[in-house]
Each structure stands twice: as C-alpha cells, then as structure tokens.
C-alpha cells in the first residue's frame, strides 16, 4: 500500500515547525524519524494534507544537571542506548531503548516520536513512567510541562494539541539516599519486537533491603502506557521479601486491564504480566545491590 498524496515542508528550524503546525493544525503531521508515521501513511491510517519534516533539525545533547536529566525529543533510540549520561543515571533507559524494534528502526526512531505515538506497547513510555519523567511540549502559544503519567489518554492518544511538539523529556534528579536500581524486561512479538508484556521498575532500597521508593511502568498490559500506583504504594516502605513480592505480583495481576490483539489474548497477558513484573523487580533489586543481571527475559 502507498501513502496518499501530501504536501511537504522541510522545517528550517524548530520555531518554523511550530509556526507551520499552528497554521495548519490537524491537517499537518510532524515527521521526526518516521518509524511510526511512515507505516501509518503507507496504510493510509494517516492522511495528512501536510507533513512537516523536523527529522533533520539539530538533535541536541542529553544533559544531566541539578534539575535532572534532559533528553531532547529528537534523540534517536540508538543514541539513547549508548549515551553515557543516561547509562550512569539509570539502567532503565538502556534496557528499554535497546529493545525497541530492531537496529534499523533504532537508527531512525526518536524518543519524542515514540511518546507522541502513544503505542500501548511502547517501551520508552513504560520506562519513563517508572522514572516519573515529564515531557516539555511546545507550540507558538508557549511551553508546558506534563508528567508522563498524565500524558497518555488511550491507545495512540495523548494530551498533545495538534499544534504542539514534544521538545524534551525530563527525568527527575536521581535519589541521593538509598541504593537505586532499574530494569526493563519484555516478552516480545518476534516481528518488529513489539512488547506482548513489558514491565519497567525503578527501585530505591535502603540498607535493610526495604523499598524506599518504587516506580512501575507497564507496556502492552493495558489500553495506555501506565504506572501502577497501587502496587507501588503496597511495596513502598516494605522489605522486599518473597512474600512481599508475591503479594505485589498477585495484586498487579488482579488490577491489570489487558487487551487482546493479534499478538496475544488478554488472558495470556494477565498471566504473563505478573511473571515479567517479578523478574523485572528482582533484576532492579539485584542492580540496586550492585549485582549483575541477565537482562534476557528467560
């Protein structure tokens, strides 16, 4: 299948792209890496009158400072996978970014594009939700910062206005007390490596292996990328004993609202989710305690 005809504007700079989007609104779609948009165009699920190309604009550098870590929206998955600033701060980003798609897709796809696509199985979305990240969104009307946990409205749906672009992702400063570890695991559908069930956990332990804080992000386990704040509350302050982990897994399984699609049934996801969660939680704890983990799901 082939894209329908569209007009094309190659943005000269970021503000130019914002002006074009303000002028054309819902009839325009921004093009970053194209790894979500081009397949949609080919299927004619998207038929914009205008495509605004921002993919060639300067990417900007990942920066860590006192306010946390800032990831420019045009950062490619492959760049994020290898970025030392991110690797030092958390294992979660490398785990998630390195398992998106395949190398060719990771060479073009961007974090901003992935978040804007809001695929329920999105790897970045789950990892960044676990990290309690925010997105900075810009338009000609100004900028606003939105917590990622409030960003997704449903499958492929976000709170972004038609004239808005994600400009950057902000990860809060890493905790200074306690021992932090993160992990992302997913069971994947072989073609395209989409998550059938993916779980991201960012964990802070104290010296008695008690959970000081935890963030849980879910991929492909509900209609939109989401945290599980009830399971987070269950574990916060508790020692991570086998009983505590078992309780948390059981609670997660009961709370899931999984969907059926061509890759898996809802029942399969409900059974699989807690298993992936347990392994991810144990990997995060292992890393928090300074150990190595086998980052394969089985």
């Amino acid at each position: 299948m082939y894209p329908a005809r569209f007009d094309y504007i190659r943005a000269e700079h970021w503000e130019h792209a914002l002006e074009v989007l303000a002028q054309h609104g819902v009839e325009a779609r921004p093009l970053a890496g194209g790894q979500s948009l081009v397949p949609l165009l080919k299927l004619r699920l998207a038929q914009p009158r205008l495509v605004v190309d921002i993919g060639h604009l300067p990417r900007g550098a990942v920066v860590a400072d006192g306010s946390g870590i800032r990831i420019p929206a045009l950062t490619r998955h492959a760049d994020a996978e290898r970025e030392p600033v991110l690797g030092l701060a958390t294992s979660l980003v490398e785990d998630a970014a390195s398992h998106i798609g395949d190398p060719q897709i990771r060479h073009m796809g961007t974090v901003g594009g992935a978040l804007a696509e809001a695929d329920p199985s999105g790897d970045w979305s789950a990892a960044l939700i676990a990290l309690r990240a925010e997105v900075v969104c810009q338009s000609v009307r100004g900028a606003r910062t939105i917590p990622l946990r409030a960003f997704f409205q449903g499958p492929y749906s976000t709170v972004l206005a038609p004239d808005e672009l994600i400009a950057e992702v902000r990860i809060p400063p890493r905790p200074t007390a306690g021992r932090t570890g993160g992990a992302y695991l997913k069971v994947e559908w072989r073609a395209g490596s989409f998550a059938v069930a993916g779980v991201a956990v960012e964990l802070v332990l104290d010296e008695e292996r008690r959970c000081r804080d935890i963030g849980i992000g879910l991929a492909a386990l509900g209609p939109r990328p989401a945290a599980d704040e009830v399971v987070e509350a269950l574990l916060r302050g508790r020692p991570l004993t086998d009983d505590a982990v078992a309780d948390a897994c059981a609670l997660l399984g009961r709370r899931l609202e999984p969907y059926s699609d061509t890759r898996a049934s809802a029942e399969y996801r409900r059974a699989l989710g807690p298993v992936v969660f347990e392994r991810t939680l144990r990997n995060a704890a292992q890393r928090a305690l300074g150990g190595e983990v086998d980052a394969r799901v089985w």
Partner: protein
Amino acid sequence: MSGRVLIEVRVNGAPYAREVEPRLLLVDFLRDRLALKSVRIGCDTSNCGCCTVLMDQWSVKACTLLAVQAHGREIVTLEGLSRDRALHPVPEAFARAHALQCGYCTSGMVMAAVDLLRNNPHPEREEVRRALAGNLCRCTGYAPILDAVLAAAGSLDGADPLDVIAPADDRGEEEHGRD
C-alpha cells in the same frame, strides 16, 4: 496538489539531484529512479529488512523512509560495495558459507552485516543475532548467515567494511541516466 520536491542525495558515492513527490518511498526512489534493484520490497510492514541500506552510515529500512528524508544524505546499497565484478568480503563470505538460497533477503542481510561490522569488528555470535534482528530469512534457518558474518569479520580483521570499496564514481548521472 502535492508539489514536487528537489532532493540532492549521494548514492554509492555519486551525486544525484531529482524532483520527487513527497510520498515517494526511499525504496522506490532507489529501485525505480536509480535502478538499484538490490534494494528489495519483501513485506510492506517494516519487518523483513530486505530493503536495508546504509544512510549516513547507519542501517535503515528504505521502505520506512520517504525519499525526501534522504535529502542531503549519503546512501550505500549492495551495488556500492562491489565494483568491476570483484566481490566485497562480506558478500563473498555469504557465498562461501552458503548463506543464501533464494537470495531475496541477502542484500538486506549484507547491508545489516556491514553496519554491524563497522561498529563492532569482532562480534560474538549472539551479537550478530541481535544485529540481524531486523532481517528475516525464510530459507536458510539463519545459521549459515551467522557463520558468514563471523567469517567476514575474520577476513576484514578490523578493517572498516566501507573502506574496502573501489573509489567513488562521479559518473552517477551518466551511468544511471536521467528520467
């Protein structure tokens, strides 16, 4: 309705300037406008990797890019690896390892392998598997393909696979004509 756009792109070392519809996919630009038939369409769903080329020295799927995204960039296809009937070490290793049967996935596999070997000249077998995750083969069962890539790594022995090509050919316009 959709105005044509001028793109300037270097392909296999030669410069081209062409007017294209914005919706033209890079794979069709390379196959139909530049007659580079090694770049194949296998799935239309961005899974199979038969369309894999190098763009600015990163492997990409040409079916999942618009030609306009290649403006100002440099593309290398399988045709750009070998000159004057002398096989480049990577496709040669494929031939020797019997790493192809129907051959349809082969050009994409070779380009993905070149991308790997540029960044990781001495990969482990597991790393080769991961690097070829975006390329599907229905014939060989993959084992001889992995053997071929490891053998190519041996024969390149750390040399950049893109440095083992004949010098750039600036006869691009003459060789491929105008359309």
